[in-house]
């Protein structure tokens, strides 16, 4: 995890939790009649990280979140949240969890602040003290006393995030938090999530926006047709593709020089199979060929995601 956080600063950090994982699921299954929405999912989410839960629409992301939060019962399997068995330990676990499931909903006739007061009333007494801080963190202080029906979609989303902070959560579960946000809003959200992780909290991010997840998360699980098909760190799943993009003063000579290592011609150069870009550079320069571009390629999360999901689709 390349972006692991510094010292935690959560007020109520659960120091008694034995497991280093905030979420543990084993064989978790949910059926709706004959349809299997979540299929024997085994999942472990490490504490203090930003964890992306990725999958195409209908892959079972939201159903898994709803089971974890005790909103719908599991058909089979076991799960623990912050070390508490669910749903038996629901009250103790959820007291330290903030969650947005699907889109955040509010009473439109109440102000943003009043909506937070409603939820704070369901939490511990200290939650009321956190309202101003949560509004400030979500960038809603100036509109806190306006009715929610006057809010934009992005502001409603941010109000939802403010609501998750009222319980001083160890774990935040955000289902598609970037929905409705403009590019600046997405950037703010990304910074806020990294800030929350830097405080020692864990953020689970369910999303289909692969680029945002890649920029925000430390670790991901890819889910398809209800199953977790791969889980690992972003660095493990993306990383070096083993190819280099090369643009030279004479691509024809370069192709001949590099012989069988050239995979294909691309728009402005060659894609070359190579573990060591410097060696390629040296060889071309020594042959009197000017190198205009030398770029080791990385496998993007999007490419890896599409590889995995299309492979599964073909197998099906």
């Amino acid at each position: 995890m390349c972006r692991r956080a510094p010292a935690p600063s959560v007020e109520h950090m659960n120091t008694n939790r034995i497991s280093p994982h905030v979420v543990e699921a084993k064989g978790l299954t949910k059926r709706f009649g004959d349809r299997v929405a979540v299929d024997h999912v085994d999942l472990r989410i490490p504490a203090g990280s930003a964890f992306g839960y990725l999958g195409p629409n209908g892959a079972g992301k939201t159903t898994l979140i709803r089971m974890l939060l005790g909103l719908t019962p599991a058909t089979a399997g076991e799960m623990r949240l912050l070390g508490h068995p669910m749903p038996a330990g629901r009250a103790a676990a959820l007291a330290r969890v903030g969650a947005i499931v699907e889109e955040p909903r509010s009473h439109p006739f109440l102000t943003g602040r009043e909506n937070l007061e409603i939820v704070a009333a369901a939490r511990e007494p200290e939650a009321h003290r956190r309202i101003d801080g949560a509004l400030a963190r979500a960038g809603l202080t100036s509109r806190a006393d306006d009715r929610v029906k006057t809010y934009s979609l992005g502001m409603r989303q941010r109000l939802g995030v403010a609501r998750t902070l009222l319980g001083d959560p160890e774990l935040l579960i955000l289902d598609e938090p970037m929905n409705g946000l403009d590019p600046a809003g997405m950037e703010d959200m990304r910074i806020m999530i990294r800030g929350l992780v830097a405080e020692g909290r864990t953020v689970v991010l369910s999303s289909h926006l692969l680029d945002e997840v890649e920029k925000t998360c430390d670790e991901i699980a890819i889910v398809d047709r209800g199953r977790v098909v791969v889980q690992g760190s972003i660095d493990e799943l993306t990383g070096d593709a083993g190819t280099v993009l090369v643009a030279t003063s004479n691509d024809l000579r370069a192709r001949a020089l590099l012989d069988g290592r050239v995979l294909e011609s691309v728009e402005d150069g060659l894609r070359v199979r190579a573990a060591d870009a410097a060696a390629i550079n040296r060889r071309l320069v020594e042959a009197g060929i000017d190198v205009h571009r030398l770029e080791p390629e990385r496998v993007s999360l999007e490419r890896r995601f599409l590889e995995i999901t299309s492979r599964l689709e073909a197998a099906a």
Partner: protein
Amino acid sequence: MTALAPALPTPRLVRAEVLKLRKRRGLSVAVVLMTVGATVVTYSILALLHGVNPAHHGPAGGSDNLSHVIWLLSALGAAAATLLGATAGAGDLRAGVFRELAVTGRSRTALFLARVPGGLAVLLSCGAAAYAIAATASVVLAGSFAAPSTTDLVAGGFWLVLSVSVYFVLALGLSSLAGSRTTPIVALLAWRLALMPILLSMTFLGSGRNVAPDAAIQQLAPHAFASELQIGKLSMATLASALVILAWSALALVLGAWRTATRDT
């Protein structure tokens, strides 16, 4: 480590329910009009008629006119209670906010039970204001009519509280059970304003009518105002009436709490 969330509603949860109901402008206006507004309009008309033609229209106050107003308030109060109860029961669910409350880990039973005192606080504050106006007017404007005694006034007030509270609880339970606001409102208003008077006047049903909540409510009406309120000739012991009311209220609350606790959100 945070203590387990209690299953009983806290005062903060009750205040939150009051806030949610009070801030619905349309609902608040309707409830005020059906209670305070109706009382003010009724006594204003009675006073105006008496002022214009005292020979044909007696004073606005007095015990008989209070009986009429209590009857009016019980009918309109039941309608207001139905609106409030149905909104309290299904408002969070329809707005999608119930899920946001459920993921706090707070007991769903506590979330449901908080609606009872929260809704009653809004309903009875309006009802109390309306009855205070009616009681004052019945004494101050009694003129040549007999003014109601203090005992009758107190008994009338308690009976009104009972009659509207029962409808609030029925609407709350039904709407929580159905997950809908409109259906229980239509069903209960149709029952209270149309079906119930017909049912209670069907003498061939005999004592079978006693299981209807309205029959029990009417049996408990203060003697001073009973002639205005009784529909059909029913006879039921006070204890039996109380048990019928308790049974209906408990049934509504249990069903509403059960559905709230078990609903997929």
